[in-house]
């Protein structure tokens, strides 16, 4: 189920990104929705591709939380950057030394995912990615297949 949803997400996001590119060929250039389609497409594609790789036996388990968080960070960050007014010469509000839009992009999109996915990968590695038992099972099965002549040829 998760894999099917992830594959659907990748396909639809590729279509959205393709539509954004195609709209740029229209007379007058890319319309305003193109950047939103690109932002949504990228956010869905990055998270769906990661979920496709992380899903085991059709499930994500606890990983669905960090993946949802990353989607919100990417879509929220890009959306805020698109929606915020551009900075002006008299812009007095700086967040951690940068204008608001720049801070959202740099600290939000560029740094916040660091506290979600790489840490989630490490914390859940033994239970959701590759345990000693998983590794032993793969090696045992591979030996059995090779012994039974079922494995394919070398690469």
């Amino acid at each position: 189920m998760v894999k099917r949803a992830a594959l659907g997400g990748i396909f639809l996001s590729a279509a959205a990104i393709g539509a954004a590119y195609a709209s740029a060929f229209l007379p007058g250039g890319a319309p305003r929705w193109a950047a939103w389609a690109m932002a949504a497409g990228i956010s869905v594609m990055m998270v769906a591709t990661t979920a496709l790789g992380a899903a085991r036996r059709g499930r994500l388990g606890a990983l669905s939380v960090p993946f949802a968080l990353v989607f919100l960070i990417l879509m929220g960050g890009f959306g805020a950057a698109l929606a915020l007014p551009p900075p002006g010469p008299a812009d007095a509000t700086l967040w951690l030394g940068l204008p608001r839009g720049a801070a959202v992009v740099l600290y939000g999109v560029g740094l916040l995912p660091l506290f979600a996915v790489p840490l989630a990968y490490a914390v859940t590695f033994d239970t959701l990615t590759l345990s000693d038992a998983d590794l032993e099972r793969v090696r045992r099965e591979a030996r059995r297949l090779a012994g039974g002549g079922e494995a394919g040829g070398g690469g």
Partner: protein
Amino acid sequence: MTLQSAPLPSLTQPLVAGVAAVYFLVVVAIGAWATRRTRTARDFFVAGEGVGLWALTLSAMSATLSGFAFIGGPGLFYTVGLGAIFIMLPAAVTGAMGAWVLAKRMRLLAELRGLITVPDAIGARYRSPLAQGLAGASILLAVIGYMATNILALGLVIDAVFGTGVGVGIWLGMGITLAYSAAGGIVAGIYTDVFQGALMALASVLVFAATLRAGGGLEAMSRTILAADPAFLGPWGTLSPLAALSLFFVFGMGSLGQPHVVHKFYMLRDPRRLKWYPLLMTLALLATTLLLFGVGVAVKSLVVRGELAPLASPDLATPTFLLRFTPLVLAGIVFSGVAAAIMSTVNSFLSVGAAALTHDLPVAMGRRVRNELLWGRIYTVLISVLAAILAQLSGTLVAFLGIFGFGLFASTLVPALAIGLNWEGATPQGAVASIATGLVLTLLFESLAYFGVYSFPAGVTVSGLSLVLSLLVFFVVSWLTRGSAAAALDPDVRLVMEA
């Protein structure tokens, strides 16, 4: 990412040259040590699957970045403002994405099948020598072009530091890289990468601190820039939102198709050590990105304040800042870091390029090279010499060859490799069609754009367009030929895909 292709300012001072000379001696020493550990083709191409976590991380980081992070990147930031950071922004996600999507499966496949190249994984996944051969040919094409630009950049750095002239710099840099690559193969590459990656991260952090000091802190620099050019610090810089987001797409998703980086997953000694890889890789990439951001902002604010003259060329941002605002020894470390970044990338390209010639193309034609270690070394020399000759030819040709490297890797490998290793429904026909689509469209679109036959609209990058079209072709053709999906999967490959 384009590397510098114009001369850098002269840095021929004894202290800078001394630091750089020490760097080159350490690289040569590591190469000599590694040569004694290279006895088989598996040692030469995949380090005998004996690499530890730190070595894997630093090596993947140094192969990812090239000299762009130190010279071209800060120059791009100086030119387009914050939009340039969209090249590096995906780094917070790509380390973990690559680990989940590729690392475990490639490492297990390598163990079960004895794989040594990235196209090997494609051949094994689809039972398709054609897909493997096409992937190998795409890699070879991109490697030669990419290498020519990297070697030219290395020649320019050596000329700037030692005053050798660009031609001698090209052959000197190529000679040193070739010596340890041909003799020690990827073993030499990995362990020189460890030294080079550490040097790059150290240089980046030190320079970032220097930029904050020179500019009076980030807030002061921001206020200076906002008063003169507010768009520079807008969320997209001076790029359009579509153009900036397109960079994020290409460098985010494209990271899954860089053979010189993902190839290193084969080399990890213990697959369970992957646990900490994404966190370490992400931190290493972020540390090395500090220089790009710091120099870009600092030089812009110093120019606005009148403390620096406007740059004649964006590539002068880092050298100009270093010569004016940092101790000479730091300039020496940074330029050694630039050489390190370029050499580590060249070494990785040499490895995947030689592997394509020695292994993937013969396998696609139903043949096996008898002595892969010997031929791996011979092809390493041939590719190096060809790339060095190309680097000495017209700058136009080198620039043309360099532009399609990253995009060609991405559009030809991401669908078939990254999606295909995780989707049992992918078919050999889908893989072949997507690789062919990526290859043809990237070459065609880049040629049209480069020679001015057709100008793509603002916001449309050729790499992004080719990647998205090859993804769509992969899905559509796999769906149309879905009846052949099950027959294309060997039981042991299915086992790895379900692991």
